[in-house]
């Protein structure tokens, strides 16, 4: 199991550490509910250095990205970021990712930790365009400073105007005395904030500076457990739970990043699926009766017939409601539809709702 540059610090802070995608990661510090609340109302910091980073350089970098990704990267301007997914040839998804455009010849891709090798091999196998690819995953640390107070709490560390970095854009500059830090107005929480890409050797210095600067705002370290409840409240997909090699981006509600304005891997089959109409759909739901949905619990109809599967579920710390995502047949996918979640052989009534489950 690999350590991030900060694993020792997490241990010294009393974090509960777990193996995640091959890394020794902090799952919680003081407790998931308290950490969740810190991000929703203040500012918190996640070490998500397990995430993978690839640099793609060259005149045809955009061509390669357009081929492997479903969103239209040609629409991006410099310093813009774009959420996208990489379809496979069989109707499913290789991974979801964020593409950063540095300039016409330079793109930075951020992928899920569990898929780094798969993604690298997949993109490489389609690179007959002479694009120079570098896997920076082992060299870069990623800190996500998230929450409504992130900009004001971090402003003293940088000359960049944090409050004016627009959502899904980024800037590069000196942060905590370190040059060339990518400061991206992205995140996986729905509460605003930044993601900072820094070299491993600078990670500890930046981490410490963040906690010094943020002390007056009550900044706290946040574990992966709260990262999951925060993203689920927003209805964001998690690869391996809600999307995988066999789920269609259209079924998963990722039609908004699946653009048929261009050709990409499996685009013809996906266009045909769009034309024919999908038969199942990933939806959000809330339990009406008591219980908590969990990954892989069956979804059943009023007669108890299995009609789908829960892909993510939790008790929402912000709302106190039991919430989840799952696949259901198209005709039960509209908000208000009544479905049942099978929890330990009992069918618990639930209602389909349109995420986000929590609105700031």
């Amino acid at each position: 199991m690999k350590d991030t540059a900060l694993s020792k610090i997490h241990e010294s802070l009393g974090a509960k550490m777990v193996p995640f995608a091959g890394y020794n990661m902090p799952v919680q510090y003081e407790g998931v509910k308290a950490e969740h609340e810190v991000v929703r109302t203040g500012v918190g910091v996640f070490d998500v250095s397990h995430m993978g980073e690839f640099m793609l350089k060259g005149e045809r970098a955009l061509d390669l990205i357009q081929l492997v990704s479903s969103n239209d990267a040609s629409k991006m301007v410099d310093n813009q970021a774009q959420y996208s997914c990489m379809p496979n040839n069989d109707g499913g998804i290789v991974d979801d990712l964020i593409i950063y455009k540095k300039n016409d010849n330079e793109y930075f891709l951020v992928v899920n930790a569990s898929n780094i090798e798969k993604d690298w091999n997949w993109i490489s196998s389609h690179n007959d365009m002479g694009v120079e690819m570098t896997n920076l995953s082992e060299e870069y640390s990623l800190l996500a400073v998230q929450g409504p107070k992130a900009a004001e709490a971090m402003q003293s560390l940088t000359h960049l105007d944090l409050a004016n970095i627009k959502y899904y854009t980024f800037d590069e500059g000196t942060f905590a005395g370190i040059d060339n830090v990518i400061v991206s107005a992205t995140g996986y929480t729905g509460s605003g904030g930044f993601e900072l890409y820094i070299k491993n050797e600078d990670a500890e210095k930046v981490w410490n500076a963040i906690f010094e600067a943020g002390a007056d705002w009550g900044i706290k370290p946040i574990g992966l457990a709260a990262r999951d409840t925060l993203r689920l409240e927003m209805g964001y997909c998690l690869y391996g739970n809600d999307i995988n090699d066999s789920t269609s981006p259209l079924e998963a509600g990722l039609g908004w990043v699946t653009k048929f304005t261009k050709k990409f891997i499996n685009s013809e089959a996906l266009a045909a699926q769009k034309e024919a109409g999908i038969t199942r759909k990933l939806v959000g739901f809330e339990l009406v009766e008591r219980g908590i949905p969990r990954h892989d619990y069956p979804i059943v109809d009023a007669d108890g017939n299995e009609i789908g599967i829960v892909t993510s579920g939790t008790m929402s710390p912000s709302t106190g409601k039991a919430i989840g995502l799952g696949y259901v047949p198209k005709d039960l996918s509209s908000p208000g539809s009544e479905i049942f979640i099978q929890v330990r052989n009992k069918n618990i009534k639930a209602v389909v709702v349109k995420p986000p489950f929590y609105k700031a």
Partner: protein
Amino acid sequence: MNVPADLKYTKDHEWIKVEGDVATIGITDFAQSELGDIVYVEIETEGETLDAEEVFGSIEAVKTVSDLFMPIAGEVTQINEEIESNPEVINSDAYNAGWLIKVKISDASQIEGLMSAEAYQELIG
């Protein structure tokens, strides 16, 4: 971790307090700490007589769900009502206000098979 000396324990991380033929049962401080924030407890076995090791309910933390096992055989006579509306009391006070059920003990000899505080402390390290 807090392991009161006057209680009995199981390898499933439950504590048992015996008073006459009534046992009060809860989960240990170690168990609540491992589970994290507890958000829901489901116990629907009141009035039922269960064997040792049988599941009497389940406990849900934000991230995980865990079965609850009978440490000894007996009839579930009472459920702690407090934990229905306020399950986090199990995190804050596992050995007192966070108790789960009371059981009328079927076979007192089973108590001898439970772990002492010392043995349990050794188990959790």
